[in-house]
């Protein structure tokens, strides 16, 4: 199978989704109107509510939602063969993620730019609001723990990336100072920043850096990196945003575009053959069944609840016209689908032979982001003539920086939740930033080490659980959208089918995972899985109840109108 064909089929399908399906959704389902005054205009304050050009807004939305998750998930899921991952990413983007992100912006814009969490409380009910905060907390907890493990592995497997990854943080700090203190013009700073970053990547292979194999103060290299990363993330999440987070997000955004263009360009030039099987009949022992696990292993890239938070948190406050929601939301999801597709191609076509590929995917949870880096580097090098070590370093830096940004943003959000709990339950010390951050870091470390022992290397076992919680979040957002559509008398099948599908798959996947944890006698993960299962059952019950209520209300309104 030629990877160009795969790429054209995937991107072509997504483009068709954007040009045809999203237009249909805008006209028939959401009935967008240009005359509707968006919150950005209604409450314009120059701070939160600012009407923004749709291309700039798309840029934000896309770079905020696309991170390491659409790389890690698909790169793990190709263990079942390239076809299932390819189909789920392509159809997921078209029929699930697109309408979810688009709908989340629409729902928020129609409700004075309120966040999905608040909307869940108002549209569905207070119980659903409570479940929503629990699910968000679980998602954040798991994403931080998993990404800590992912970056640690990347740094161990690719010592050439250690200097550029940490160097990029120094570059970001300098960019922040240059813009805010020295007031140097942005294009110049960007140019110098990008040159510095790529210079670091270029010299990375010449200055490899690894922690001593015998360990640091009694800790294995993996455990030591995880602790260092959390210490860094804790400090980063406490710093004012302009110092590090803002310039780093900016560099990441630039890197995302450069990386995507370079990867797709290299695929076009090199046209590598997909060596992985279409459907892997000979999966390594211990690999869970493809259905339902595929649908929770790939969350970001097919459908992800995280997007709803971005869509209704910041994007909806800046939407210039209601009709822009289609471009920003749906096309934003398409962008992430394209990243996931690139990850699939890199992890299946970037190897010389099937045996090489099998060597990497020797057990479930292996491969993953490392397969993306190794495979992607082979493709990049073949397509652009770049030295393979430099190409590998570039992709490692890209993945590690994405994961790092998600980690410190995640820790910051988790800290806010702890602080809020401190205020609600009148626990004074918990309401303060530092203790709340320490609590967040502590809970993530318990998870990272509790799931995988002192090495911390088993933390990736949580990945499917993270996917499940993320899907539950998406389910709640789809529920809000569906209830709103029922109340307006619009067609609901286009949101209802994805909602039912992901709820069924999440529940099924949870039961499968719980059985697996029980058989492996991993009581820690069994407990965590049970919490997610309880949340999932409640989400399902709330969905049924809320939809029944909304349908009854609608019937009453229709009857009144008829009279």
């Amino acid at each position, binding site marked *: 199978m030629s990877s160009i064909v795969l790429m054209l089929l995937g991107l072509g399908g997504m483009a068709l989704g954007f040009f045809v399906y999203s237009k249909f959704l805008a006209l028939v389902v959401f009935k967008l109107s240009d005359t509707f005054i968006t919150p950005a205009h209604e409450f314009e304050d120059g*701070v939160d509510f600012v009407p923004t*050009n749709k291309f700039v807004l798309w840029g934000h939305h896309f770079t905020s939602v696309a991170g390491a998750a659409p790389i890690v998930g698909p790169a793990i899921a190709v263990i079942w063969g390239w076809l299932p991952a390819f189909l789920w990413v392509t159809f997921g983007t078209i029929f699930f993620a697109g309408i979810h992100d688009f709908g989340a912006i629409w729902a928020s814009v129609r409700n004075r730019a309120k966040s999905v969490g608040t909307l869940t409380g108002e549209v569905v009910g207070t119980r659903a609001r409570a479940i929503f905060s629990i699910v968000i907390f679980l998602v954040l907890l798991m994403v931080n723990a998993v990404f800590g493990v992912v970056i640690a592995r990347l740094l161990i497997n690719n010592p050439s990336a250690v200097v550029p990854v940490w160097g990029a943080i120094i570059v970001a700090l300098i960019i922040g100072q240059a813009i805010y203190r020295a007031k140097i*013009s942005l294009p110049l700073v960007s140019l110098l920043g990008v040159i510095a970053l790529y210079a670091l990547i270029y010299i990375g292979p010449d200055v490899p850096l690894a922690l001593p194999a015998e360990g640091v103060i009694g800790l294995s290299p993996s455990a030591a990196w995880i602790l260092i990363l959390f210490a860094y993330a804790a400090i980063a999440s406490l710093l004012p*945003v302009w110092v590090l987070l803002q310039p780093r997000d900016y560099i990441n955004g630039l890197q995302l575009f450069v990386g995507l263009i370079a990867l797709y360009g290299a695929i076009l030039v090199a046209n590598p053959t997909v060596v992985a099987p279409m459907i892997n009949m000979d999966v390594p022992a211990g690999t869970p069944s493809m259905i339902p696990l595929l649908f929770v292993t790939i969350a970001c890239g097919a459908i992800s609840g995280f997007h709803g938070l971005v869509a209704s948190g910041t994007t909806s406050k800046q939407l210039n016209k209601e009709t822009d929601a289609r471009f920003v939301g749906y096309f934003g999801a398409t962008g992430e689908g394209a990243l996931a597709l690139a990850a699939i191609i890199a992890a299946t076509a970037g190897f010389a032979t099937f045996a090489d590929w099998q060597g990497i995917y020797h057990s479930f949870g292996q491969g993953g982001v490392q397969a993306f880096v190794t495979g992607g580097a082979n493709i990049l090098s073949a397509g652009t003539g770049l030295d393979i070590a430099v190409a590998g370093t570039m992709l490692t830096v890209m993945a590690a920086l994405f994961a790092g940004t998600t980690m410190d943003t995640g820790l910051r959000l988790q800290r806010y939740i702890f602080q809020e709990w401190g205020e609600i339950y009148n626990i004074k010390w918990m309401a303060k930033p530092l203790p709340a951050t320490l609590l967040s870091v502590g809970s993530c470390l318990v998870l990272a080490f509790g799931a995988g022992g002192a090495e911390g290397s088993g933390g990736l076992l949580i990945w499917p659980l993270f996917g499940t919680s993320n899907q539950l979040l998406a389910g709640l957002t789809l529920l809000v959208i569906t209830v709103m559509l029922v109340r307006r008398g619009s067609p609901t099948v286009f949101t209802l089918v994805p909602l039912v599908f992901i709820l069924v798959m999440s529940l099924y996947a949870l039961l499968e995972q719980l059985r697996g944890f029980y058989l492996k006698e991993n009581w820690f993960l069994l407990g965590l899985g049970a919490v997610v299962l309880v949340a999932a059952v409640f989400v399902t019950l709330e969905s049924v109840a809320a939809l029944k209520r909304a349908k009854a209300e609608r019937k009453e309104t229709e009857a009144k109108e008829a009279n």
Partner: protein
Amino acid sequence: MKNTFSRLKYIYKKASAAGAEYYNAPYRAAIARAQRDEDDLFMLLIFSEMMGIPNPASWYCLELQPLLLERFHAWHLRMGMERSPYDHFRCC
């Protein structure tokens, strides 16, 4: 030639503005909030003498008070006081 130059300049300006927007927009709210927090502390310093907190720079603070009067109402509301905290200094 001149035309090309001015066109290039125009494109550069546009790109620069879009870049600045891209850089600033996601964090505008967080930075404005941080600035407001600092301003709130400044307000407390300026009006501290009136609350009986000794302030060595009270003379200079007094000079600033009329300038900050416009912000006074919003400030005491933000600080959780529905009415002005001073008997002799009413704004609402």
